[in-house]
């Protein structure tokens, strides 16, 4: 009899807990995988496909499912890798490719034939133009992903280094020598270099 009571009590508790859990999973259902969103948030969103996946969300999905490594994002560099490894709870891995300097696409407009192929390739709609009108890149929106270079039939798109401006300059870490840009003024004295 005692055994029966124990079984009934525990069984009843299990039943109640089960019902509560079932209701909660319905009531607080989360659309999508929260891990994918978290990983996507630390990616640089260049949509460049250098990781081998067609965009940042697909890569985040692959990492979340354990299919892809944490160190494949090239533009994100070490910082993204560390953040992803932290989220996934796996040991950090070396980023194989060195993150390049920030680049921008530039259309040589006099050579552009207006084929719109690059416009279709741009993942962030940063190229404007119309058929048979030359195209141009919106500098502020270009992520430097290089996806527009390949489709161009006349090879008129160059990747140029993003110009460093004074407003975006920040102090280098102590001990690292700051780089001083080339001479800006003809009258610049020779000792400019020696005062660095």
């Amino acid at each position, binding site marked *: 009899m005692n055994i029966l009571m124990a079984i009934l009590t525990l069984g009843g508790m299990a039943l109640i807990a089960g019902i509560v859990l079932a209701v909660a999973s319905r009531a607080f259902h989360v659309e999508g995988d929260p891990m994918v969103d978290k990983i996507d948030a630390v990616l640089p969103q*260049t949509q460049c496909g250098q990781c081998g996946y067609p965009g*940042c969300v697909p890569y985040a999905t692959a990492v979340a499912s354990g299919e892809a490594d944490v160190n494949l994002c090239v533009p994100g560099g070490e910082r993204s890798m560390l953040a992803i490894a932290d989220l996934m709870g796996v040991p950090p891995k070396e980023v194989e490719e060195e993150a390049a300097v920030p680049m921008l696409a530039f259309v040589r407009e006099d050579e552009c034939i207006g084929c719109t192929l690059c416009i279709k390739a741009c*993942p962030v*709609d940063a190229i404007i133009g119309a058929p048979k009108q030359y195209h141009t890149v919106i500098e502020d929106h270009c992520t430097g992903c290089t996806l527009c270079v390949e489709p161009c039939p006349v090879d008129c798109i160059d990747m140029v280094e993003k110009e460093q401006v004074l407003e975006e*300059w*920040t*102090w280098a*870490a102590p001990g690292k020598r700051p780089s001083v840009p080339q001479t800006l003024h003809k009258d610049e004295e020779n000792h*400019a270099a020696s*005062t660095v």
Partner: protein
Amino acid sequence: MLPALFERFGLNQLWPTGGFPGGVHPPEHKITADSPIIELPLPPQLILPLKQHIGEICAPLVEVGQHVLRGQKIAKSQGYVSASVHAPTSGTVVGVQDHAVPHPSGMGRPCLMIEPDGEDRPDESRAPISDYRNEDPALIRERIRMSGIVGLGGAVFPTFIKMLRDQRHPVQTVILNGAECEPYLTCDHRLMLEHAHDVLRGMDVIMHAVNAQNGVVAIEDNKPDAIAVMRGAIEAAGMDNVEVRTLPTRYPQGGEKQLIQTITGKQVPEGRLPLHVGVLCQNVGTAKAIHDAVCLGVPLIKRVVTISGDAVPNPANVCVRIGTPIPFVLAQCGLEDLNDVRLIHGGPMMGERLPRTHVPLVKSTNGILAFHRQSLYSEQAVEEPCIRCGHCVEVCPAGLVPNELAWHCRNDQFDRGQDYNLFDCIECGCCSYVCPSHIPLVHYFRYAKGQVAKIEKERAFAELSKARSEARDNRLAREQAERAARRSKVRKQHAPAADKAAKTAEKKTDEGKTGEGKTEAVKKEGDKA
């Protein structure tokens, strides 16, 4: 730290009020204190950066080859937080180009080049407002805005913004900052001695503009002559509501928040302005510039600068046109050869080393210090491990824990750094000054602040890119759906008619065949003919 603890336990009465925590007293080296202000001659060329203030860059109003007059506006502000640029003398605009500016990066900015014609003819379009006491404060503010006046203590924040009348936060006290706590610098000291009357009138303009009840002229006790002169001038002017307050000589007494704490006993809370505690703080140089702009109608075209340091043969206080190349100014003080000389823009504690020498003197230049390479401390100092002596904590005027903070900044743990209130650091340099291990603490904080801003910017850009990418995906999906819908619609419309169409098509081909035969026949006939 300790004052905060006292406050928490309601014991702040025990803590000596009327002072900021920490601070240092470095050797003063005020070697130019007795040298009167010298007016410098015009240089062969003036270089005027289009941005010499905090805020938006200006747009040039003049073209190359155009002749300008002294005081003529040559670049206008493009945003609210901005200050226009005026021609320091009459002459010809010879170029608009990038030129190196006094900045630790050594990078350039768009600058206007002016070749003086030597006549120095003034632009007299701006009439003086002599009866400013009966003038609308909004008009005075507008005059200050039009005159391109910025905070001349070194922060170069547009002055007119600080003078906004806010109903919710009325200004009770105007503090005139004559502390000049940085070693070597004496330009404010000389200005108070030689132009006491103008400085006080400038202060009166400010007090009228913001409707302040009382004013305080704050001077450190290492300048007894300036204190006496200012007291005398106040008495002569009959300004009953203004007093001179003598402050203990302690760096950074002249920091805005520190000065307010010393004088009013109130702390400006994190992220708030002096306005929120009913105080407006202006440098004595700014007060003089306001006097010139309002009472004389002269915009900000020159300023007083201290030229000092052990490499300068004749250290002096000079009154220079803004835009004068720094090598020209140094040559006037006897320093021609700049090899093996290190230039510091500003004071030795907060100033920045200039990687380039051919740069113009700008609105923020309160001092130019030239040192021999070997006498510069940072040249020999080698960073050693922190020994946790805690001196930096004792001297920090912002009540931070610099050693812990630097530890996080060094390891790129910027979020931890922000937990230690990284952005409350005023970069005064007290911690680096006292550190026995020669750790460049302020450099670490500047690095971390820059990195935090950079990461924030990158994150914002990533968000924007993501939004654009999502918008593109949605658009592509929508276009595809529309195309599919259109196709199915066309198919549905033509579905019943499809069979008919097929039949007519067949008929047409038959007719076509006969038609072709006809033409062929015609052709053959033609050939025969």
